[in-house]
């Protein structure tokens, strides 16, 4: 019955309406809950300080800020277009394919290529008995072929290529200057590496200590042996000898000092001006002043930097040549000439050797004087004393060796950094040379392009 149908339909619609309203009511209350459940979980963190970036977000349609018109200097036919309106493109994408305009030169070169090819084939077929001459003619023809191909390739040249080449040249020159700056910076870093110099000073000091401790141990062991084999230690003569040697060394030092002290003073000044933190030495007095270990390091660094090595004697032959290749070029000091630097070098060397000589002789003499008391007393007492001294010397030696190892480790570390720097410098210099070569080729390219 129609009425029943109608009421059924009405019932259905009533149900749908109630469901709809119920769903909306539920969603009104629980939409946020549902939303939160679908959010990703976040981690919490402690409060920390940072910078707040103010961001503004909006939405809109993106349009190009500027359009770039691709201008060709020649009329060429567009063979195909690879993108369509609305596409996103990125740098390097192919936009459209142009057809070649065949110039007359191109045609001529192609024709020439063909004829030469045919000739080459003919020559191949007509191999004469004189293989050498035919081979030579084949070779010349092949060369002609290559030349023709090159000409053809090279003829297809546009102004665009020239401008590209010029652009490349400019960028290459830029890069070259950058690399040059980098190399200079790294070189400066290399020479200023104070850590390295300090480590080196420590190593030298401890090596000396180790060697002196070793000699002390050796002497005591020998004395002990001598004692065991009988006989007492005769020190008096040794002390007298040591004393004379010491006096002699002191006199030499004094004379050297008087000769070179002004040079030393100027050298110290120059080294300080170069940025090293040398302590000053009183060059006004006549008594020789010691050059401290740190000063030695700085002075030596300064001298290696600026003094160009003297060329080896020509009598060395191949050996001398190898030496010359190994030496690196020295930097140029603006305020001092090479001669002055050479003088400073000699002065420093002389003073340093004299100083070291005195120091070693002094230690030897002191030790001998110390050991004089061993000469007195009975053999067993002597033996005991010498044994004691030997033990002391051995522990000193061990301590000195330990310190030497530490100093060597430190030096290695510093050297490691230094070597890294040196490697970098090498890389950069290689890059520089490459860049120079590249600039050369680019210049040549541009020249040939412009001729055409």
């Amino acid at each position, binding site marked *: 019955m129609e009425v029943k149908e109608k009421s059924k339909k009405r019932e259905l619609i009533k149900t749908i309406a109630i469901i709809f309203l119920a769903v909306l009511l539920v*969603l009104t209350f629980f939409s946020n809950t549902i939303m939160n459940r679908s959010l990703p979980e976040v981690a919490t963190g402690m409060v920390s300080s940072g910078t707040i970036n103010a961001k503004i977000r909006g939405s809109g*349609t993106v349009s190009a800020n500027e359009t770039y018109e691709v201008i060709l200097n020649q009329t060429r036919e567009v063979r195909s277009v690879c993108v369509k309106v609305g596409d996103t493109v990125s740098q390097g994408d192919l936009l459209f394919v142009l057809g070649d305009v065949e110039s007359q030169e191109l045609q001529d070169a192609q024709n020439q290529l063909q004829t030469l090819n045919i000739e080459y084939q003919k020559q191949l077929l007509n191999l004469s008995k004189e293989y050498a001459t035919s081979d030579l003619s084949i070779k010349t023809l092949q060369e002609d072929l290559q030349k023709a191909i090159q000409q053809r390739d090279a003829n297809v040249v546009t102004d665009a290529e020239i401008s590209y080449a010029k652009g490349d040249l400019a960028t290459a020159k830029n890069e070259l200057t950058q690399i040059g700056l980098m190399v200079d910076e790294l070189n400066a870093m290399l020479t200023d590496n104070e850590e390295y110099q300090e480590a080196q000073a420590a190593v030298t000091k401890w090596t000396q200590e180790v060697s002196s401790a070793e000699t002390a141990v050796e002497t005591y062991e020998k004395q002990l042996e001598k004692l065991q084999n009988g006989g007492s230690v005769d020190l008096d003569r040794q002390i007298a000898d040591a004393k004379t040697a010491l006096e002699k060394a002191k006199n030499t030092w004094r004379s050297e000092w008087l000769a070179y002290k002004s040079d030393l003073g100027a050298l110290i000044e120059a080294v300080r001006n170069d940025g090293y933190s040398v302590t000053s030495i009183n060059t006004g007095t006549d008594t020789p002043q010691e050059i401290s270990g740190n000063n030695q390091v700085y002075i030596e660094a300064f001298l290696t930097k600026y003094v160009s090595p003297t060329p080896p004697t020509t009598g060395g032959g191949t050996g001398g040549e190898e030496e010359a290749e190994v030496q690196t070029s020295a930097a140029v000091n603006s305020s001092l000439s090479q001669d002055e630097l050479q003088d400073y070098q000699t002065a420093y060397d002389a003073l340093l050797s004299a100083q070291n000589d005195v120091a070693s002789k002094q230690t030897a003499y002191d030790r001998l004087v110390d050991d004089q008391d061993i000469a007195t007393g009975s053999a067993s007492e002597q033996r005991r004393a010498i044994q004691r001294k030997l033990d002391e010397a051995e522990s000193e030696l061990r301590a000195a060796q330990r310190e030497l190892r530490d100093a060597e480790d430190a030096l290695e570390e510093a050297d490691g950094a230094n070597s890294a720097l040196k490697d970098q410098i090498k890389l950069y210099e290689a890059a520089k040379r490459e860049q120079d070569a590249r600039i050369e080729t680019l210049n040549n390219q541009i020249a040939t392009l412009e001729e055409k």
Partner: protein
Amino acid sequence: MRKNYYLGRGLLTLVAVFFAFAFLMPTVLTISNSFMTQSEISANYGTVFSNAAGNTNTYISDTVNLKFIPDKVSLSQYITVLIKSPDYLLKFWNSVILVVPIVLLQVGVASITAYSFTRWRGKLRSFLFFFYVILMLMPYQVTLVPNYLVSDWLGILNTRWAIIFPGMFAPFSVFLLTKFMRRIPASLIEAAKLDGSSEWQIFKDICLPQCRSALYSIAILVFIDYWNMVEQPLVLLQDAEKQPLSVYLSTINANEVGLAFAIATIYMVPCLLLFLHGEDYLVEGIAHQGSVKG
């Protein structure tokens, strides 16, 4: 003759189909575009809104593409409307809270008024009825300012009563119902009166059941009218949280076109359901307008 007849019928059908398509197209567009992603919508309709906003930038396409079938069906717009935030749903409930009392109260008040118009035979009756008719013919904007002043004077300005009270006493339903109640034979009422029933009983037991179709049709029309009102809440309700969804839909901007489609689809549903429920009554009620008694 036969050919003419079929030709005529065919032509008529064609015209009818054309008009049907023209009327249905916006609705179908809304529903199908509500399943599009925002990017597709701005690609297709970007020009419309951006040109309206005064932008002079050119867009990818200068024409508007009317797309009926989305390239990629996605429920992202619905998720934004229903789940992401309850704002839109709260506005929906605002609409419901405004409209349902209006409908119920208007139907109640109008039926009583109509009954009194049929039963009262005083001198002023025709004048009052004429007054009602004039009011019905006037557009709402004419009475907006007096409404505002009276609401302010009554102190109900920022509340929902500012909309419900004027809605309650609207003259349109009175007119319709009077017309309908006049069709009830007077003899029926006389008989009932003789049997000793009071006015209220006559009204409740005799008139109202007779007028059921009219009541239904009035309810539907009033519902649709007030479901779509925009200027009344804008003027009389100043709080943003009391605004109904129709107001929000009228203020969409270019960025939220997809969202507007989805909201409109959801907004359409109560009207559709109500109409489907009371379809027969509506047709009957309108058909009886001005038709022969009986």
